Each structure stands twice: as C-alpha cells, then as structure tokens.
C-alpha cells in the first residue's frame, strides 16, 4: 500500500523522542490538510504516534504500516495536519 503524502521525513536511526519531535517540527511547516510521511526504525514510534494523534488536536494519524527496508523493519506513519 502506498498512500499520498506532501512531505517525507526520514527518521531512520533516530531514537525516542526524536522521531516524534522532528515530526512535530515538520508538521508545523505543512498546511492544514497536508500529510507528512514519517519513516522510522524506532519500534516505539508506532505507539508514540498513536498517542500523539490522540492528544494533539491538530493532527490525525491517517495510516501506519511496517515495511522491510534493507533487511530491517521500518515503521511508516502518515500524519495529517488537520487545522
């Protein structure tokens, strides 16, 4: 499955809380309605992004998926800026 997105953030190799912190910075640069795709290797980011979307009013977690890239699991998050 490949979803549409407006910006890609490569957070591979980064650990907690950096995927979240960087995603937050990037989504601030998007317009409402646009989608940020975040690629991370931190397994905790799956639950972290769900928690973020639950708490923050201006973000929506559109989809999450796991891919295998270079033999390692990669966690992909599609986050939409709502307002």
């Amino acid at each position, binding site marked *: 499955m490949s979803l549409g997105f407006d910006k890609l953030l490569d957070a591979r*190799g*980064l*650990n*907690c*809380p*950096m995927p*979240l*912190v960087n*995603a*937050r910075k990037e989504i601030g640069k998007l317009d409402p309605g646009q989608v940020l795709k975040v690629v991370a290797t931190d397994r905790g980011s799956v639950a*972290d992004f769900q*928690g*973020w979307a639950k*708490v*923050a*009013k*201006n973000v929506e977690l559109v989809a999450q998926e796991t891919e295998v890239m270079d033999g390692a699991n990669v966690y992909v998050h599609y986050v939409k800026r709502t307002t």
Partner: protein
Amino acid sequence: METRADTNTAEPSRAPSLEEKLRDLEQRLTEIEERVPDNRVTLVVFSGDLDRALAAFIIATGAAAMGQQVSMFFTFWGLSVLRKGTELSDKSTFQKMMAVMSPGSSAGLPVSKMNYFGVGAKMLRSMMKAKNVNSLEDMISLARELGVRMIACEMSRDVMGIKESELVGGLECGGVATFLADSLKSRTSLFI
C-alpha cells in the same frame, strides 16, 4: 391558628427566572473552567543523576512535541544539571566543599546505579551514543528550542550557595508557589 408557617411565608418563594438560572449556570461554568487543567506537564527535577535527568528531558521534549506546555522545576541536586562552572569566591566553607564535590556541569553527572566513580556514567553515555540516542546536552538545548520553561529553585540554590552565574542562562527563578501554580494547572506532574 397556625403558628409555624411564618418563617417560610415571610418572603414568598417564587421560581427563579430563566435569566437568573442562566446567570447561575454561567457562574458555575466559569468556576468549573478555572479548575480544568491546561495542556501542561510539570516536572520537578530533584535528582542530579544523569539517567534520571535524561528521563526528565525525554518526557519534557516528548510532551512539548505533543503540544503540551512544559515546566521543569530544578531543585537541590537537580541544579547540577544546569551548572556550567564552579566559582568559589564568597562562599562558606560548607558551600565550597559542596561546590567542589558536586558535578560542575551536566557532563560530570553520575548515574544512579553502578556509577563506580564516573565509569558507569561514561559507559552509559557511550552506549547511548552507539544507539544514536541524544545526549543529555542535546536534550537540554532541544527542550529550550521547544519552549520548555525551566525554573531554578531559589531556595535550594541559595542554601547550596550556587550562584546564578554558575548556572546556564535563560532560566527563571522561583519557589514552591511557582511550581504549584503550574502543577495545579497541569494534567501530569512528576517528581524525578
């Protein structure tokens, strides 16, 4: 003749008007709104241990990234996290002893377990670097960048004789009421 009813009938009771009901409800709503916490997280950093300080800054930066306002209140050993140097002038003997024996900056913080005179802290730092986890110093500057409010406890700073010039810049100073004013309006308060 009835003798009991006069206290109740002195002022004839009437149903409150819609306007009065509305005013009453508005007032109650205002009172309730004042009690609803902000999107705020407040942390007390009491410990001067590297691992605990890291935990505090990971929570602080994570919360800030999630859109929370964050206040960190540094007190007692936690002030070591914010130190940038040691000055011995104008200090009492005990304060001098404490200044010399406690870490002069975040780089000198021990770990809470298995420190072994600093070897443990060095090990933890190199293990974290190997796993590409941000260092404490990176986390501190990240917290600043994200607008985390950092408050140095005036009382413990004074007792321990730590001068403002020995601490990093950009700090607020305050006391227990500063902490409570924020923590009472927070959804989460932690003592680390």
